[in-house]
């Protein structure tokens, strides 16, 4: 049983398209996150949701919109994709969302914008 699962694993698309990445966790955690890892492996937080409520939005363009239908799911929708959006996107979860907690990561979605 995968604790944090995200789909798709790979996503190749054209500039200007709209795409979504789905994430689900079966750990019963209250907090979920989206991170972006660039080509230099720098892993940066994008969003954090606690029990379906947005907690963190780290200066991410408006084209990125997270949606949390329930606390087990946090999907990432991206409008008007740009070349610079190419990266690996990781979903993660933690029990309560405190800084000392362990993060559980999905295996990533590699997005390539052509």
């Amino acid at each position, binding site marked *: 049983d995968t604790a944090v699962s995200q789909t798709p694993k790979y996503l190749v698309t054209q500039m200007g398209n709209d795409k979504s990445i789905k994430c689900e966790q079966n750990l019963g955690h209250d907090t979920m996150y989206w991170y972006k890892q660039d080509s230099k492996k720098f892993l940066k*937080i994008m969003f954090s949701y606690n029990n379906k409520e947005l907690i963190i939005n780290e200066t991410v363009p408006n084209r990125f919109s997270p949606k949390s239908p329930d606390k087990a799911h946090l999907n990432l929708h991206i409008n008007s994709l740009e070349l610079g959006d190419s990266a690996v996107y990781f979903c993660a979860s933690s029990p309560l969302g405190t800084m000392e907690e362990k993060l559980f990561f999905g295996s990533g979605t590699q997005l390539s914008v052509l």
Partner: protein
Amino acid sequence: TQLLEQSPQFLSIQEGENLTVYCNSSSVFSSLQWYRQEPGEGPVLLVTVVTGGEVKKLKRLTFQFGDARKDSSLHITAAQTGDTGLYLCAPSSGYALNFGKGTSLLVTP
């Protein structure tokens, strides 16, 4: 914004060698986590250090938190090919777990 540096950025060694990687900052942290990320996977937590001067061991890996809680080190004894990966430090600060840029370790047979 805290300045967090990991060094070295890249490290290539042979099996059996010892190595140390570093995570340094000018800020004080209440705790710090170390993660390892293997190719094609998400990061996985190795350890959390909380107390200044704390040393934790995980088999051949030794983690140390600096006395002033501004820095940390990871020492690997007798490296194995399975240790290959990206080692990320993540201090708890502010409202989100932010990661250093990592040390990419390659252990060759």
